[in-house]
């Protein structure tokens, strides 16, 4: 019972983590997500439920749903990446900065050598850029 509850809670935290870090990292929501995750684990230990199964259920649900939901967002907003949902998910688990860099390079002029962060990357949930 507790394990299933923690699986669901972990999935919720994972979805929030993904949505706070894709397509670019937003600091305050990310910090809140990690605070929630750490707080849950600490609360479990404090309540004397620090057996491996419960904590692994929480962390497993978190990582799996975070990767899958990141993959879903990437597939939707970045079809130019030429990957399937699972490939996006695995890459987001292994090395997320690669995807962020690839995505950001789409919005910069080809000859710009400065890496100023463009505010346009906040409007990037658009399907088609003319």
């Amino acid at each position, binding site marked *: 019972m507790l394990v299933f509850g923690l699986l669901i809670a972990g999935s*919720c935290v994972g979805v*929030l983590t*993904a949505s*706070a870090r894709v397509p670019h990292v937003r600091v305050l*929501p990310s910090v809140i997500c990690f*605070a929630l995750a750490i707080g849950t684990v600490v609360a479990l230990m404090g309540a004397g439920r620090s057996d491996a199964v419960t904590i692994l259920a929480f962390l497993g649900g978190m990582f799996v749903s975070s990767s899958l939901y990141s993959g879903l967002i990437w597939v*939707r907003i970045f079809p130019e990446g030429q990957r399937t949902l699972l490939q996006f998910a695995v890459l987001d688990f292994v090395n997320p900065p690669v995807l962020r860099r690839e995505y950001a390079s789409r919005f910069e002029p080809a000859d710009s050598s400065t890496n100023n962060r463009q505010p346009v990357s*906040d409007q990037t949930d658009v399907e088609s*850029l*003319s």
Partner: protein
Amino acid sequence: MIWTLAAFAIGLLTGVVASDARTPHTRYVPLLSGFALGISLMLILVFTTPTNPYVGFVFLFGEILSSAFYTAWIWSRIFPEIGLSYGQILGQEFAHPSYVRRQYSAKLYEEGLARPATD
């Protein structure tokens, strides 16, 4: 007292997460996840501690407060063309929230960035 503060903190966290899922456009899965987490934390708080159940209103107060402040911050960061200061956008959040959203979608439409209504 400590539990009232805890309820306020849970409300602040939920507000930031919900605002992040709602601005500039609504994404339902993170929104529902955030509310599910916040409300389940509040249920745990109410049912496992000897506190007054009316701390739910403190949770609501914190949620509205941090949601308005964080939403205004997002708007002033990604949409400076609207020409309102942070405080004015914050006022619009309470007075007329759809005003900034409509201006933003009009801008996206003019720039050819409008997206089909998926999501």
